[in-house]
């Protein structure tokens, strides 16, 4: 666990000040801001393409206490086009595509996130469950509703960031050909 093995695919933008620990693979087009924290404690983390991981985000691969003795090391696979907004804390064991984790949201390590889900700002989801597709959790009382469609893409924002970030931050060099 102490060995860091960071694989950054061509086209990914990973700021050097981000804190990456463990075995992490970062897909093409993914942007990781400085001061984001990704900890692969229980096993490797594979992040898909075009994910946006903003400042103060914590993605931690940590197993629930009752599953820690298992033999095989689980892999946390995060799909593509996920947006992790400022200061969200995600420990989900599985994340699909097109999800949005809004600012200061918290997802516990017993929650499986499928596709197109939105965890609203400040919402805490800890109960063991599998979130259905396009589920939106919002508000003070964590109301849940089903969306019609998956959330829109942040293409414009990511284009701007991929131009701006290299001007002000040191970027980790991609070390893997795709």
């Amino acid at each position, binding site marked *: 666990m102490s060995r860091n093995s960071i694989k950054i695919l061509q086209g990914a933008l990973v700021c050097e000040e981000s804190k990456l620990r463990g075995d992490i693979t970062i897909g093409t087009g993914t942007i990781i801001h400085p001061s984001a924290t990704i900890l692969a404690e229980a096993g490797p983390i594979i992040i898909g393409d075009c994910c946006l991981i903003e400042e103060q985000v914590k993605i931690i691969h940590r197993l629930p206490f009752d599953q820690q003795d298992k033999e095989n090391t689980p892999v946390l696979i995060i799909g593509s086009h996920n947006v992790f907004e400022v200061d969200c804390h995600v420990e989900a064991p599985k994340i699909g595509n097109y999800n949005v984790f809004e600012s200061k949201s918290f997802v516990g390590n017993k929650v499986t996130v499928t596709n197109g889900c939105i965890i609203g700002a400040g919402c805490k989801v800890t109960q063991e469950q599998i979130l259905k597709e396009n*589920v939106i959790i919002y*508000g003070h009382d964590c109301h849940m*509703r089903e969306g019609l469609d998956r959330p829109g893409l942040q293409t414009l924002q990511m284009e701007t960031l991929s131009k701006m970030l290299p001007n002000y931050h040191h970027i980790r060099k991609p070390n893997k050909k795709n």
Partner: protein
Amino acid sequence: MAHVVGPEVVKYACTCGLLKSISSLYFCRYCCQLRCGFCVCHEVDSHFCGKCCENLPSSEARLKKNRCGNCYICPSCQQELSTRIGSKGPSNPEDPKSTPKKMYYLSCLYCRWSSRDVGIPDQSAATGGWPDRENVNANRLQEIIEMYKAMVLAEKQQKEKDKKKQRGKYLSYTDRTGVTAAALRKRIGLPVDIQHSLLKAKPKEPEPAIAKEDVEDLPEELLTKPVNLTEVTTIEQRLLQIDLQPTTVEKLFPVHKQLSIKRSLRCRSCEHNVSKPEYNPNSVKFKIQLFAYYHVPEIRIVTVEPLRAGRPSELIIKFTNPTQHQTTITILSLVLSGDENEVKEETGDQPSLPQEKQPPSLSSQPSSLLSLSSRQPSITIKPRPVSQEVNADVAIPSSKVILPPRDDAAEYDDSGDTHNIQDDPKLVVWRKSNKAFVKLLVTPKQGLALNTEIVAGFTMQHIYTNTIATTVENREPDKHDHNIRVFLTLGNLVGFD
């Protein structure tokens, strides 16, 4: 501001007898009395929409049922909806070169609900034209409203009629002659019951609602199938659309945003405003703001020694003078019931009795006050006794505390205070600019149980300098002694060690 002066451990007794923190009190300069939200008149100044900041006259607001015609709130989470540009398909499908046509839809940025969720077609204009749904009961409601309107009218006419009749009683001679009006009418060939002609135009009553005995059966699937809560609306969502009360989420439709009001507060005794906002909805300022915070010395608890039954504890409180005039604070013992404040309040409504209104130690004649109280008071407020119980005694100091005026620049002045005030060192422990720390001895009463909340009280008398326009012969600003009863929640009783 409540969080600045909170927690609410220091409470002032309003003239009406309610206890409030200083941030929720007003001070009427004309009556020289504290007023709170419960003893002022609330008046609606203007209606406006909080989103588009449009001002609406009250008649128009009533017509629109106090809702904005252009702004909508989310039926799902009650936040404001914003208009978003949707598909940009070409305006002419056959000609791909034609300018792209913008379509607009409503979307909630909070819960991501959109007008597309429930199948409302996109609009071509950004400003709306969103379809308003017809209330199925609109006709019936209209009928009932009309009936009530007619009833009100009939009642009014009847009242006028009665008034006329009463007046007529004293003028007519029928009483003396023994000839009734009806008989007289008959004699001269007029219909007898003319006064009932108005009652004949009785409002048409709508058909009464009929109770039905056979109701729909409880759907079996409610008991057999698991409930999908994401499809069922919450109570809040149903009550937001009171006319439809949708049970499932696909029947949620955008709701017109409710208008906000700006209100002014008026002292009930003298009808002067104690708070009046600026008319412009964009402005958060006030034209008149007679908040107690700007006129009455603020008291805050600094420290209090552990409270033990029957033992004196040292209490240090801070006085702050918010005004531009020097004031003197005298601490008097608390009078809970039948006290001078109540007497003053009752006589304060009668300007013909200036001697009674005048507190005993008044330093100058309040002649300006008399000239100002020319307006007739609208309502006489009967003050209630303060219901707060006090279970600690405060040793009343013999000396007074002088508080210099507020000086905003003094905070940045390190040269020390230039005020030359001879303080009683037993009373004033520290002072700086317009603030003074005062030491009091508080003795909780004997025989109280442990953990009892200790409340101490005293009457604070401060000299209030009234700056409202003075008369020609009296150029000096009026100085009044103003008494306020103050209650301090000091914490819980602890045991002896």
